[in-house]
């Protein structure tokens, strides 16, 4: 019976260990990915609207890399800054005016062309790749109620660990 208990305990420990290793590897991979993106100079943006559906959806993350104006082509998806609203939009190029050095853009899911062209100075970069769903964390953190809940939960967890650790120490007679 003790042997079985011991065997059961060993299996439980192995499962925990495997799971832990999986989590560690996943975190490490994500971390390496983030480092890679940072080193490459690419910029990431969290998609907030459905104007580029179905190619890009709300909750996706787009990574853009800086390119020269002359390397742009009609059909490219680019991110640009629009000063009128102090924000960034990511739309598809529908025409390029070489003489004026501006591009005309439009969302795949919008009815009309964007109200104003984008000049070279406001161009951030061309779409390199996108990750679906990865942007929901940043979207969620725009919700202040959610932030307060997470913050409160974190404090509770930390306090609980302190209290439990203290009890453990006392039970050892230290």
């Amino acid at each position, binding site marked *: 019976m003790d042997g079985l208990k011991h065997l059961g305990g060993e299996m439980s420990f192995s499962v925990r260990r495997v799971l832990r290793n999986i989590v560690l590897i996943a975190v490490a991979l*994500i971390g390496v990915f983030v480092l890679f993106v940072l080193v490459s100079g690419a910029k990431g943006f969290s998609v907030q609207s459905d104007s580029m559906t179905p190619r890009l959806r709300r909750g996706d993350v787009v990574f853009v890399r800086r390119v020269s104006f002359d390397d742009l082509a009609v059909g490219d998806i680019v991110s640009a800054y629009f000063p009128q*609203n102090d*924000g*960034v939009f990511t739309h598809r190029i529908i025409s390029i005016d070489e003489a004026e050095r501006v591009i005309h853009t439009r969302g795949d899911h919008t009815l009309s062309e964007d109200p104003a062209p984008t000049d070279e100075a406001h161009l951030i970069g061309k779409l390199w790749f996108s990750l679906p769903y990865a942007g929901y964390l*940043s979207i969620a953190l725009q919700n202040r109620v959610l932030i307060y809940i997470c913050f409160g939960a974190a404090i509770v967890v930390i306090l609980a660990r302190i209290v439990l650790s203290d009890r453990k120490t006392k039970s050892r007679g230290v």
Partner: protein
Amino acid sequence: MQKKSKTILTAVVTALFMLSLGYFALLAPTTAWYYQREDESYTFDFGNFSMTESLEEGAQSPANVTLRGTTRFADAGETLFNEMLYTVKVAVDNENGEMAGSINVHVKRGDTELSVEGHDGLKWFVYSPDAANHINTPKDAINAMLRRKNSSWPLNYNTLTYKTTNNGETEWYTDYDPLNGEAEAAYEAYNTKALSALQEYNERGFSVLAGETKDVYIVFWAEYGDLKSDFGVNASAADRTITERTFAAPSNTTPITYSGLTIEITAKPDTGGTQTSSLTISGAAASVELYLLDDGKWKKYTESPASDGTISVSSGSSVTVSDILVGTPYKLKLVGATPYFDNSNTSVRIDETGRELTGTISNAATTVTLLSTPTLVIFNESASSAASVELSTWTSGAWAAYPSSGVTYESRTGAGAWSNVTAGNAGELSVPAGGSVRVTLTADTQYKLKIKTASLLFDDSGRATQIIGKIADGSDTVSIIPNP
């Protein structure tokens, strides 16, 4: 040692975890130009959107529409079309807004959204008066809408019909001959094309720029074609004929009533309203003055490429004026006796002198073509019958067939591209149903046209089988219509 490695590994993974979490949590947002969701926290505004729209007093929802009689859709020759309508006016105010807005109109009967077909003959149409483009009445608006859509020209029949009760007997007044099978066929063919244009027109939004107000009219009528069996006019000819051009219905007219109507108006930002487009003038060498309607006044365009207010076009080349707001009415005036505006373009209007053209800047780049020699354009408004026409010109004191056999003239269907056609017998032109032909003539040429097809007539101050005209200051346009 193992414990130390484990500690280091844990620290590295923790750091990577925090880095990843922080990176994805703090990503900058990217959005559309104008994007709004029901939750205000995801609202991004491009300017301050402020539009109010109100139905005129007396127009209620649900509404009852009562009409004195029926009429036909878009009858160019019928002066009484406007008399047979029920109109609801909507005032749209964007005076305090910082961005262009647009309104969409929806009409429902119960829970059913009204399209342009069916619904017991009830039809509706939305328009806004536009003095610059000569749109003052609903009939003007429908004609302009159909020209813009390049549909065939409106038919030229009067089809006003209403019924009355006189001493217990039903009588009807009508200026329509229900026994004219060919006219009926022409109407049906015409309506098939025109209704799709009307549906598209009703679905589009009316753009109202920032700082502007606009009156929009919703117009209802009862379509004769859908209700004729109710009138029994297929059984025999009409009892009475309307001969007057003014409407004076007897007091015992039986009205046509549609009830349970709801008019819904939605307003939204319209980035398309702030869109700019271009106007290109090309073709023959010319000096042209451009005017744009601004705040109700025509203002001469003096920026590049206009020099001292005049745009110079070289022969075979083109000049483009860019960054004109979409929806802006424009006017072009030719300086000098030549050249001539291309009068085959049905989306613009050329005045009687032939020297002034008006139109509206559209989303697609607008092109105005100039011709070095004047032309005679013959439109065939019949949707079903090609027209055989005999053309002759006054030359050396006598009428001579023109063009000569073997010489080409231009022909097209609808608003399609022109193609060259070789004249068979001298002076014989074949105008396709719903199409047009174009013949080049020299200035001051007198011409004579004879229609050879029995079912068709020229629409020229009445109805004629022969007309004589002269190419004077500009090109000429002649229309062929079905013979009622």
